[in-house]
């Protein structure tokens, strides 16, 4: 996938909702790794569109992959509104995919 220009996330991220990394194709976000603060704890969330998730699962096939805790979204890309909905915890099943960060 060509990397191209980076996506624009202006105004979305703050101390309670941080972006670690993205898997992008130009300005299209296909996957992201986020840090979400909830209460006094930080949680890591992996989000991928289905196509990326399926491709990565095939790429890692045969390797010890532990439990897969990726939140998979429909569609061809992750939109700003998807990330905003995650930030606002509008997806009811999101809690099942949060991985507690043990840094602190």
């Amino acid at each position, binding site marked *: 996938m060509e990397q191209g220009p*980076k996506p624009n996330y202006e105004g979305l991220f703050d101390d309670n909702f941080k972006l670690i990394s*993205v*898997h992008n194709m130009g300005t299209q976000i296909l996957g992201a*790794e986020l840090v979400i603060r909830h209460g006094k704890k930080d949680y*890591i969330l992996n989000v991928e569109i289905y196509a990326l998730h399926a491709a990565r699962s095939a790429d890692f096939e045969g390797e010890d992959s532990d439990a897969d805790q990726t939140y998979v979204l429909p569609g061809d890309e992750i939109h700003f509104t998807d990330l905003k909905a995650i930030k606002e915890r509008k997806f009811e099943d999101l809690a099942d995919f949060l*991985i507690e960060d*043990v*840094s602190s």
Partner: protein
Amino acid sequence: MNYELEPTLQRPDLLISEIAPAPGFEVDQADYPWISKSSEVTTSLVTLSDGSQFRYGSIIGLSSSVSKIASGVNNEAAIKADQTMFRALPELISGNLPLSVDAVMNQMTGTNLYKTGKKGPDAARVYFSIERSDKDPLPIILRVAVTRHKEQQKLLGIITNANPQRRRKHDGGGR
């Protein structure tokens, strides 16, 4: 057993066919503000089994904070993350983003940072950068950090923190 900070490259599982000495590379603190000072790091000329060539070095040891995080990584997990990085390098060097690699948003310097992705909550992540030099047409891969997946928040606070006041807390900088 924890992972050695500067692992040997003499491992066939990394797809390396040849290693040769190469000139050192001057790492600028302006590009990597969390390191204690600008330093020259040793590099090796690496040829992968597909013929891809690059220079390779590590800057993990230039930061005590990053070194400490790396020392907490399980040996087996770190080796798997290294395997993922080396397998991805040919495609990444050619300008494409491999499936197994993500781009890291570095608000601090704008340096192109990448990290390996891996399924599973306990998988390690290797962070690395691709440098270019006017003196050498080959790209220089710098291994920047290795961390447990669950400790990325701490690493993120060190390597992408835009607040210089907080940055000075790392490595005793700003003295």
